[in-house]
């Protein structure tokens, strides 16, 4: 009889244990309990989120693979498909920032090349505590160098992402890694174990004791035992993964394998059982054959190890030697450890003894699904009252403070540590609305962006979800790309708390609704619950990764002003809204909602206009308005280019000046164009029914903003630039 303490230690409830006993008609042994603890963990089973994730639209004419596989796949024409996915590596990155982040990159890369695709780009969404705290700086430094250390070495460019700061991430930073790959449509591979008697091969690194219980760790809150959990973090070897990547793509190109699955979270356990479950087959393996890094590992340890850079392959029987030759060429082990069976069981032998004998479906498909209690906030979060906010007298100093707020300031300190150019596809470098990657040997490019605003989502989860999708798509529209698919990483607190579960439900609904209106399929993603440390939850942080298509490489647009005497136009209309803004947080120290309103139909029209204007070649620049509002957006247009370019702007809306400058009204894009195109643009705007205002022109060496004719900001561009540029580096200066 398994004692209660052991069961509890494995994160399994008494009811779940009863269900296990019912399913297998006996008590599990310790190894088997370990297997259940991994596969029934929140991280692997999605048991609390499953019922909500069904709400996402997942189909579309170009969808080749929706949720459920290692990554989603969208047809992009020319016989090619885009493969992409986002994953979190939050818990490990807090415990051991460098290795946590590095193995996060390694894991998502394997998800992509497992499907036969060559990874062409990664992006990261990073959330840290404020940089005024040295521990947060150390975490950020470790995470950034971990991402760099892995991505640079393996030769996949890290082309963008986002970096935000808030107290709620001090004890629970978020590291979400997105990867995009390209695959030939005819060479897509899946996690399948088909054909009785076909050999199962173990390839890649040897198995060690690292990472045991990683997935279980990601499915619980952190308490005071943090330091003890450090050994649960895996250690990455990007060089090994590079060899694995090349060898796997080579055996796939040569059609030597039937099915392939990476060993990520839950390692050997997950890969064997999922491959068998996907094919309705079984797998039998012998642990004595597993390449091991250290002696005396028990079956429990081998099955639960999360050692990195390993894959499981089911090969065609007659081609095993050829598979082994390819791996030998790349100096890697490829060992037959077992075979496919037809009895729908996972059988594991060790030292001539049976160590595990479990029905695959019990492990993979029959995990309990929970409809957890949800409860709206009570009381609801505070809302801002305009009369509480004094109108500032000096907008210039406020403007400079906003610009250098770490979340809004320049991120070059981060991205210049990443090789963002390797593979020579990066047509738009990090720092723009979206990163753009050309697809070699075609006239196309793909644009990618990651987006989310956790404080919006906290203040109103449904709006926050909608805005995340809307803004990500707006980012794409600004570079000239139409969205083709979405992946998301949903970072939330403990789902056993009804308010957290409510946040989740609402946010998913918002995201689903927006995706339906934009006609973009969700092709997969990741849920990260239990982002709580010592009882405090993070803000709900859904991160949207959206991929867009650019059909004509010559039509790529960037945010920076390109020359003097261009007309600056604001698409959309500014409203009197300040809730949840950076301005309120930074200048008035108020964390109050509500987030800006979002009208998805209106949003769609603004994006349609931007895209149409770009495709007609009318625009010199386009830039999305988001955190920091119009002032931030104008500043970036002035300073992002190689040649910095001033502007003279007069805003004529009769609303509060602070709201006009720093309010974060949605569905707005700032564009610039030559005067000769103005009439065509006006006609287009009328046709598509988008309100717009001509607010000024480019040129000069000042950022000059008037409100109703009165100068409120008039600052040399160099000063704006250095405030923005030096903010993050100044935090890391060694005195």
């Amino acid at each position, binding site marked *: 009889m398994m004692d209660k303490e052991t069961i509890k230690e494995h994160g399994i409830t008494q009811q779940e244990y009863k269900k296990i006993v019912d399913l297998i008609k006996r008590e599990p042994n310790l190894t088997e309990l370990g297997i259940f603890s991994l596969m029934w963990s929140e991280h692997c089973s999605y048991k609390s989120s499953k019922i909500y994730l069904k709400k996402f639209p997942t189909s579309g004419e170009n969808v080749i693979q929706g949720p459920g596989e290692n990554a989603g796949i969208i047809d992009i024409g020319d016989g090619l498909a885009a493969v992409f996915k986002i994953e979190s590596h939050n818990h490990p990155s807090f415990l051991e920032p460098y290795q946590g982040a590095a193995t996060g990159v390694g894991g998502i890369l394997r998800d992509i090349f497992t499907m036969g695709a060559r990874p062409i780009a990664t992006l990261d969404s990073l959330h840290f505590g404020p940089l005024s705290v040295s521990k947060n700086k150390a975490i950020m430094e470790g995470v950034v*160098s971990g991402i*760099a250390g892995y991505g*640079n*070495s*393996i*030769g996949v460019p890290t082309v963008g992402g986002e970096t935000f700061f808030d107290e709620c991430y001090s004890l629970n930073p978020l590291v979400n890694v997105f990867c995009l790959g390209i695959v030939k449509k005819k060479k897509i591979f899946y996690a399948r174990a088909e054909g009785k008697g076909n050999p199962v091969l173990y390839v890649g690194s040897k198995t060690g004791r690292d990472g045991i219980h990683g997935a279980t760790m990601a499915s619980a809150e952190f308490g005071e035992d943090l330091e003890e959990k450090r050994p649960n973090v895996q250690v990455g*070897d*990007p*060089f*090994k993964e*590079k*060899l694995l990547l090349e060898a796997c793509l080579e055996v796939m190109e040569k059609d030597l394998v039937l099915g392939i699955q990476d060993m990520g979270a839950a390692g050997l356990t997950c890969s064997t059982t999922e491959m068998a479950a996907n094919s309705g087959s079984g797998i039998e393996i012998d642990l004595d054959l597993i390449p091991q890094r250290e002696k005396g590992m028990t079956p429990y340890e081998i099955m639960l190890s999360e050692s990195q850079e390993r894959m499981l392959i089911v090969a065609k029987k007659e081609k095993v030697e050829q598979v082994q030759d390819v791996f030998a*060429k*790349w*100096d890697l082990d490829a060992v037959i450890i077992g075979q496919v069976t037809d009895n729908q069981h996972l059988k594991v032998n060790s030292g001539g003894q049976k160590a595990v004998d479990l029905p695959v479906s019990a492990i993979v498909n029959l995990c309990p699904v929970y409809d957890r209690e949800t409860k709206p906030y009570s009381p609801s979060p505070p809302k801002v009252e305009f009369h509480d906010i004094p109108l500032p007298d000096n907008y210039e100093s406020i403007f400079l403070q906003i610009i250098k707020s770490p979340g809004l300031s320049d991120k*070059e300190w981060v*991205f*210049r*540590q*990443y*090789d*963002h*150019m*390797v*593979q*020579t596809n*990066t*047509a738009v*470098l990090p720092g723009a609305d979206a990163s753009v990657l*050309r697809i*070699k*040997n075609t006239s196309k490019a793909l644009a990618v962006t990651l987006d989310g605003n956790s404080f919006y989502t906290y203040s109103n989860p449904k709006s926050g979800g909608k805005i995340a999708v809307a803004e990500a798509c707006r980012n794409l529209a600004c570079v000239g790309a139409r969205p083709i698919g979405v992946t998301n990483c949903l970072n939330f607190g403990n789902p056993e708390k009804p308010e957290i579960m409510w946040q989740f439900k609402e946010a998913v609904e918002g995201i689903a609704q927006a995706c339906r209106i934009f006609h973009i399929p969700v092709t997969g993603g990741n849920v990260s619950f239990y982002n709580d440390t010592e009882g405090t939850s993070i803000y709900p942080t859904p991160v949207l990764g959206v991929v867009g298509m650019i059909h004509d*490489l010559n039509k790529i647009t960037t945010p920076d002003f390109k020359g003097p005497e261009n007309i600056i136009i604001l698409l959309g209309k500014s409203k009197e809204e300040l809730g949840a803004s950076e301005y309120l947080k930074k200048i008035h120290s108020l964390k109050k909602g509500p987030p800006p309103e979002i009208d998805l139909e209106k949003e769609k029209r603004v994006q349609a206009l931007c895209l149409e204007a770009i495709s007609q070649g009318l625009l010199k620049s386009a830039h999305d308005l988001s955190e920091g509002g119009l002032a931030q957006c104008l500043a970036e247009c002035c300073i992002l280019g190689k040649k910095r370019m001033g502007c003279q702007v007069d805003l004529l809306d009769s609303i509060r000046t602070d709201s006009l400058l720093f309010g974060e009204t949605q569905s707005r894009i700032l564009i610039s164009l030559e005067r000769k195109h103005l009439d065509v643009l006006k006609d287009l705007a009328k046709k598509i029914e988008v309100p717009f205002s001509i607010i000024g022109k480019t040129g000069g060496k000042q950022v000059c903003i008037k409100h109703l004719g009165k100068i409120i900001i008039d600052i040399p561009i160099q000063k704006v630039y250095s405030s923005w540029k030096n903010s993050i580096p100044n935090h890391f200066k060694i005195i």
Partner: protein
Amino acid sequence: MRFGIVVFPGSNCDHDTLYVLKHVLGQESFFLWHKDHDLKQADCIILPGGFSYGDYLRSGAIARFSPLMQEIKEFALSGGIVLGICNGFQVLLELGLLPGAMLRNKNLKFLCQNVHMRIENTETPFTNKGKPGQVLNIPIAHFDGNYYSDSHHLKKIIQNHQIILRYCDSEGRLNEESNINGSMEHTAGLINENNNVLGMMPHPERASEILLGSCDGRIIFESIINYLK
């Protein structure tokens, strides 16, 4: 012209270099596997960027022992044209085909960005299509690019005009700020005494198409093609 691009385990700019030579510049180009002993009658050997053997131990330190390096060394010593880019430069230093060594960048961080460099010497197989003093805009991406040499060798390479590319600002001025990684003598590209082996940290293959922001890297490749013609 036949270009052989060496593939070490961990090379990751091999495909990029091949793409530029083959598809942008129309040259006959092919990979050379590090375990082979055959240079396939290449007229020019390129050691591409990347992290050969993970750059474990020290950048380029293990790659120099690859079987093919024997042939490459003989090829170079008999006057063959060899270009080492980034990790390739590091391998050439480890191999002893070029003097000196690389230290960590002065800010102790990996650096990936566009930088400027000045052509100091146009009488080489690698720079003959450039103008003396011409400023090139080519990206770097490395952790260990801070060139170091003892004073004896340093004196010699200066005298022989072996530093053929120097980090500079956009106007071609040499200053502390533009010497991005802290290299001695602002060294971005170093040629051997016999004028046939060049190591450079910047990546010319990343600056050979206007879509990627600069075509200045082509000067290096086109000079080689011109020289071998």
